[in-house]
């Protein structure tokens, strides 16, 4: 195929993980596919880059949780260089006095760490995990495949199946589930645990990346939803070479299957003729033609900017323009000349996903500050030391640390020009409460404020998910009612980004499922 071919079976907009997964599946089915992206490199928000020479880190997204093994197998990603540095990370709730709590594992020694804060929490954790496990089982069949199209005839069968699955949980768990659905995660955790630290850490897990605090109703369900995604992906971890290695493997796999990836090719228009997809136009005027276009750009931008509202029915325009996208985050990446010393840390802790959230009040206050356009005094955060599992990311004995700080306002009081330094200082000081020698070890750093993340990845002020993961934007309402089967309402146009079902994280599922939807529709016609 020549490099300047302009006609394809399918065009994929965006070379992020979902766009690449979609391209891979389409190419595998024999389609002639081109992937177009405005950036200079593939990966979207999952890229690995240098902080300074020889120090590499996942620039934005820094963990993979929920990437199904099935996609790895289908696209033969290991052949294309994907290897896991770890896929069994423990989550560690950091404690100032060194009494850290190990979460997301059922090892006896881990559970014992809970008792240092509250004697009864170890038992409570077992019950909590068991219960959440049941809810995960209930949700999983809805999240790992395309949503069923429930016709009137199928409703009876589906209702019977659902009722039976609910019954299977048993009365106590069913009651608890029905109470959990509208609850805030604060209510859920107050009902379950005593210790402040475990409640702080779990409430951070539930709200990370969302525009929500522990007291926001619906966040209990967010927690279960995230756990379901983790279960689909069989664990949490990162690839050798950072999250960028995942997208590189995906790109290589797609290309190996015959797809073409064209970078520095910003799409400015999706061309519709007589109600059908004709192709796309790049900023330089080049037109690529294909009967099928899959867009991993967020649904709102895709429909309203790239296609244009006039090509949609009125209700669809209303629904799409209503999509809420909120949740500002900052990212800090550090190059370190040695491992910072955390009290009582062993291998598992250094290699874990570290959460700083001493209690729910601190998490709530960071959300309150964000709502007010202020920087909280006590930032909460998620941090990892990827070089601990993957020494090639830094020179021998040196390390990189990757920090996600949620609830950071996009428009901060006083402006980022003046607030950036105090913000970074506050984050470093906070980590230093746990690892006092951190600042001595910093060689270089990179700070991405929400506006900078917005510029580079498009999610600085809009959250990571191209649409909040709230009840009105989940399942059959994701990205909008009538679009849950990836078809956007214009013949040949599909949505394949994280804004579609099942949503958030580096899961690749929206890409896979939308490609399947496009292929299935072709078969029918």
């Amino acid at each position, binding site marked *: 195929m020549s490099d300047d071919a302009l006609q394809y079976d399918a065009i994929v907009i965006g070379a992020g993980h979902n766009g690449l997964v979609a391209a891979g599946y389409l190419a595998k089915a024999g389609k002639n596919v081109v992937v177009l992206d405005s950036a200079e490199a593939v990966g979207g928000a999952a890229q690995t880059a240098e902080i300074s020479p020889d120090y590499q880190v996942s620039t934005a997204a820094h963990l993979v949780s929920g990437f199904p093994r099935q996609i790895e197998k289908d696209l033969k990603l290991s052949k294309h260089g994907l290897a896991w540095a770890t896929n069994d990370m423990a989550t560690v709730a950091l404690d100032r006095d060194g009494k850290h709590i190990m979460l997301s594992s059922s090892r006896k020694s881990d559970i014992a760490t809970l008792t240092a804060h509250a004697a009864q929490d170890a038992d409570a954790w077992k019950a909590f995990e068991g219960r959440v496990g049941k809810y995960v089982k209930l949700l999983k069949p809805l999240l790992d495949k395309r949503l069923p199209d429930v016709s009137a005839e199928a409703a009876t069968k*589906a209702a019977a199946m659902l009722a039976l699955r609910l019954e299977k949980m048993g009365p106590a768990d069913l009651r608890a589930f029905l109470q959990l659905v509208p609850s805030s995660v604060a209510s859920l955790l107050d009902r379950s645990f005593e210790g402040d630290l475990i409640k702080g850490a779990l409430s951070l897990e539930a709200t990370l990346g969302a525009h929500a605090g522990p007291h926001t109703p619906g966040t209990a369900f967010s927690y279960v939803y995230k756990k379901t995604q983790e279960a689909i992906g069989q664990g949490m971890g990162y690839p050798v070479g950072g999250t960028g290695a995942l997208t590189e493997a995906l790109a290589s796999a797609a290309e190996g299957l015959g797809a073409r990836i064209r970078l520095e090719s910003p799409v400015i228009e999706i061309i519709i003729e007589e109600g059908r997809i004709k192709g796309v136009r790049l900023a330089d005027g080049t037109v690529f033609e294909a009967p099928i276009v899959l867009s991993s750009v967020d649904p709102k931008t895709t429909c309203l900017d790239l296609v244009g509202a006039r090509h949609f029915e009125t209700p669809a325009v209303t629904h799409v323009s209503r999509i809420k996208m909120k949740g500002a985050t900052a990212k800090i990446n550090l190059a370190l000349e040695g491992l910072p010393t955390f009290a009582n840390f062993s291998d598992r802790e250094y290699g874990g996903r570290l959460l700083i959230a001493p209690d729910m009040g601190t998490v709530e206050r960071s959300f309150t500050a964000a709502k007010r356009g202020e920087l909280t005094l006590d930032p909460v955060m998620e941090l990892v030391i990827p070089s601990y599992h993957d020494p090639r990311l830094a020179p021998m004995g040196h390390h990189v640390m990757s920090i996600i700080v949620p609830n950071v306002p996009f428009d901060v009081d006083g402006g980022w020009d003046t607030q950036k330094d105090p913000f970074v200082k506050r984050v470093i000081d906070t980590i230093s409460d746990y690892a006092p020698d951190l600042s001595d070890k910093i060689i270089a750093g990179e700070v991405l404020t929400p506006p900078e993340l917005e510029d580079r990845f498009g999610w600085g002020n809009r959250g990571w998910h191209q649409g909040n993961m709230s009840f009105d934007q989940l399942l059959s309402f994701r990205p909008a*009612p009538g679009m849950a089967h990836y078809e956007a309402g214009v013949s040949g146009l599909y949505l394949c980004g994280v804004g579609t079902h099942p949503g958030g994280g580096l899961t690749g599922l929206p890409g896979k499922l939308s490609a399947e939807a496009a292929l299935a529709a072709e078969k029918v016609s």
Partner: protein
Amino acid sequence: MDRVDAVIIGAGLNGLTAAARLGGAGLSVLIVERSAQVGGGAAHGQPAPGYSAPPIGFSHGYVPPELIREFDLAREGLQLIRREGGISLFDDGSHVANYANENVMRRELARHSRRDADAWPRFVRDMKRQAELIRQSLLKAQEDPGEWSLSALKQMMSRTKSVLQMEPEALYDLTRFWSLSLDDFLEGYFESPAVRAHLAAPALIGRALGPADPTGAAFLPAQWMTGTTGGAPWRMSPKGGTQALADCLAGVVQARGGDIRFHAEVTDIKMMDKKAAGVILADGEEIDAGIVLSDLDIKRSFLSLFQWSGLPDGFARDVANVRMDGIVARINFALKGLPEINGVASDNPALSGGLMIGGGLHAMERAYEDWLDERPPSAPLLEIAIPTLEDPSLAPEGGHIFAVSAQYIPTELHDGVWSDVRRKALMQTVKDMISHHAHGFEDHIVAEELRLPSDIEDQAGYTRGDPFLGQMSLDQMFFNRPVPGFSGYESPIKNFYVCSASGHPAGLALGAAGANAAQSILGSLKGRRS
């Protein structure tokens, strides 16, 4: 008296309706009341000689017409007064008023936005639809979804099926209604921030929720249960206030053979064979009864007051976990006359629906954040009822009452106690907020009284001062109320029932929880006999 069929702890509205229903079914009933009057939180006090207002409770509430008919309250002298209107006052001098007449209401909205005036009929239609569904659930015990029987399974299947079969648009609307914040939901109808704030504020009062919190919208229709002709809904309130309602109910109880004993404080529940068998009073007197009902909140009923033995472990934990939050301070101002409100003519009919001062939704959100931080809000949300406009009997000639519910007042402060200085500061904040819209307001004040959530806890016994005896959030409503598995008013203690607003439907309807509890008792008695 040595034995009755049913003894009821507390003569609040729910204790009274429970007693009235049980009495009507032929049971001998005794209410034991700690204070000297009926009404509980609905009871009135005298902020100044000649002035009458409830110091604790809200001065209005929805009384289901079914109960009025069942107890023939009109014959007991109950008169209901229709209060129309309600005006939100904003700092920039603008206001939004409610009018019962559709055209007038739309003209009012058009002052803020033409589009909003056009959206009004759609909003009314949707509110009425949801209000009717909620209204139908008020006087029914909620089924326990965890109870498994063939019929329960069938019902679960048919319900699931009906949801799956819904038109996608309808299901989407329903999901939005139950899950969106007030802010987001109202944005789907109205563009004017003032109109949105005006409509949102009443749905927040008493609830530990901010206007941007999901699930807030679900409480908008509560005000629409009374009635509307296409304009704003009106409220029906008893002439003589909630005290008059309590007095009428007490009359019904007595007419049905029931007794009420005052100054009778229950200190323990008498148990026999692990079943409730009566109550023990502070002076040691024992009253035997076949059934014991508690009109106290669920925490007091099970955790604070009585020495239970054999309360199942899980149940005690579930009760302890019920979220009770004080959030409203009640303030009554006895006024020697009606102050002039800027920009509102003194004969504006919308005044009798009271005033709302709280700024826009952002200001309300800030006040909510202050509450979360346990600090006194710099600008609380004020709902001001002026009951005397339609019911002059509540004040001396020419006098008026401003019954203020100040929202987002924490029960405890993060940095100390509610000292006298801080109480005074709060009162001054409230007065300043009112004076901003009514110059010279303070000159009209004859007397004033403040009840913080902590005072309400001390005086009325509501845990943490929660006005609804358990927060009305969706995880604590309907079949989740008061705790999952016990939505039928019964308890794990045989013959002991909770009839207070801790049960369904809480503050949505006055007296309904008590009537429902009685119904559930009568149902199980019938079951036992047959």
